[in-house]
């Protein structure tokens, strides 16, 4: 009998090897455009991870993460197009802006919990969505701003940048993988355990001496960082930024991906995001109402697998590897 951890480790290595080989494997086997679809999946799963950190590990359901995604996008686009920054300073701006915004919004938002928290996050993202729509000279409003890609690395005559598809893909892959690894470290650290204690029982958490408000604020800022970084990557990936990505519809999608994949599991957001984006890509070319399928899948999973696809998978593994009595 193979132990459960062996199976999971094998699966993880397999997925890792596949993801690394995508820029060479996909063009050989399938349509090239799947390289970019997978890159997009990686970016959105990083975005969903920010929802996961808040909801799955701290117990705060945010419907406003798109605000930080949008700030990440605009940080990069405004940095490159209006301020003439290079790749790295623009990326820095695309991370610093959402982190600062998350701190400001968090100071107010984490005073609240449950639906009050969810509502205030929506309100914050709506305010800035409408601001971005009206401040056309700066943001381009609905049309957004597109920009010319700066190169990422330059060694003498040779340049590396997002213009090269393989480089773009690998840069995204390594960034997302590094974030997930850091999150894994976080979950095994004192800070991570404190988050989970607050998720399970915030009253008890304050009784044992945890500063619940401060810890929630820290989690909110870290989530803002993850959402902002994914937005910054998406801006470089799409070479533009637009206010439409700040709408709460975008936040809501990340919540669905996270819950379907498995909130409170490290890879749940990746699984949920992959599932839905693959469905979208496969079905939308044949049938324009692909969101009906997405909705049906989401409802079925929420009803029959409340801990998401990853939870379902773990239950199956447990049942399969449990000693027969």
């Amino acid at each position, binding site marked *: 009998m193979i132990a459960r951890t062996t199976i999971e480790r094998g699966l993880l290595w397999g997925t890792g090897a596949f993801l690394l080989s995508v820029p060479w494997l996909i063009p050989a086997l399938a349509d090239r455009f799947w390289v970019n679809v997978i890159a997009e999946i990686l970016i959105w799963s990083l975005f969903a991870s920010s929802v996961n950190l808040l909801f799955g590990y701290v117990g705060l359901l945010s419907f406003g993460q798109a605000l930080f995604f949008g700030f990440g996008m605009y940080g990069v686009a405004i940095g490159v197009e209006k301020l003439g920054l290079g790749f790295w300073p623009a990326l820095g701006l695309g991370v610093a802006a959402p982190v600062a915004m998350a701190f400001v919004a968090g100071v107010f938002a984490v005073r609240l919990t449950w639906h009050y928290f969810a509502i205030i996050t929506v309100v914050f993202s709506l305010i800035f969505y409408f601001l971005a729509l009206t401040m056309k000279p700066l943001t381009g409003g609905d049309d957004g701003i597109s920009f010319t890609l700066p190169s990422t690395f330059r060694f003498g005559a040779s340049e590396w940048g997002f213009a090269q598809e393989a480089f773009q893909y690998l840069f995204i892959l390594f960034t997302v993988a590094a974030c997930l690894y*850091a999150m894994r*470290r*976080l979950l*095994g*650290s*004192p*800070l*991570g*355990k*404190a988050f*989970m*204690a607050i*998720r*399970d*029982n915030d*009253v*008890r*958490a*304050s*009784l*044992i*001496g*945890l*500063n*619940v408000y401060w*810890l929630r604020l*820290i989690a909110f800022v870290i989530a803002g960082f993850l959402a902002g970084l994914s937005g910054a990557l998406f801006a470089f990936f799409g070479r533009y930024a637009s206010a439409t990505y700040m709408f709460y519809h975008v936040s809501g999608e990340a919540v669905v991906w996270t819950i379907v994949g498995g909130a*409170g599991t490290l890879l749940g957001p990746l699984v949920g995001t992959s599932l839905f984006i693959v469905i979208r890509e496969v079905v939308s070319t044949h049938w324009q109402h692909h969101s009906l399928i997405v909705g049906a899948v989401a409802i079925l999973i929420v009803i029959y697998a409340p801990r998401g696809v990853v939870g379902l998978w773990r239950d199956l593994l447990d049942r399969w590897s449990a000693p027969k009595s």
Partner: protein
Amino acid sequence: MSPSSAGRAAEPILRIEGLTKRFGGLTAVDRVTLAFAPRRLHAIIGPNGAGKTTLFNLISGFLPSDEGRVFFAGQEISRLRPHRISRLGISRTLQVKSVFQQLTVSENLWITAQAKRGVMNPFRSTSSYRDTCEKVERVLEQLELTRLADRQAGTLSYGDVALLEIGMAIAADPRLLLLDEPICGMSPAETERTVVKIRELAQTIDIVIIEHDMEVVFEIADDITVMAQGAILASGSPKEIAANEEVREAYLGRPEDEDYTEEPARA
């Protein structure tokens, strides 16, 4: 937790002066003045609604008091927030058992033991904190929970959850432990096991316990305080309390009899 010198022994571990809490028109705690001497096991008894749990909530900072002051080992704690009070060394359990459901038993103890020492490190692994891990092992052994160390707290039996909660209270290295009905809802066997543990703990930690089971209270307490309608009715040794006419009338004897005779009349 140094053994108290003669000078400190005189100073009460907890001193309450004129503490009052009103909920609208109801005065839940009414000008309560109390002092708990160190190194003794104190019990607070009283009928439902006497204000016992509210008193705990005021001491632990869970509710703001309307009037009065609370001193812990000489330091005023009346206006501090719960996590500050907890860090000073007051641990408490809740009447409705509450642990961290999705964490394992040892994780529950770990985070409780570490909470005061700082939890802001996002990268260091919890297993590398040797002091805290040793503390967890000791508490697990002390409460005979070692076999359940890796079980999720949400899957434990009621009696084990209650033990875990006491374990969490002592994992924080408190100087004062407030136990709110620790054996409520337990089977006789679980009760016996828990009473033994509480007695052991009382050797090293000052304990104030709220309990309804009179048999248990008179068995373990050094001092008993009786509350009724938010105020202190009597205070003294178990013998004095048992002999106190007022207490007997108000609480120990008659009211229950009256309840039984009243029931049919209402029907």
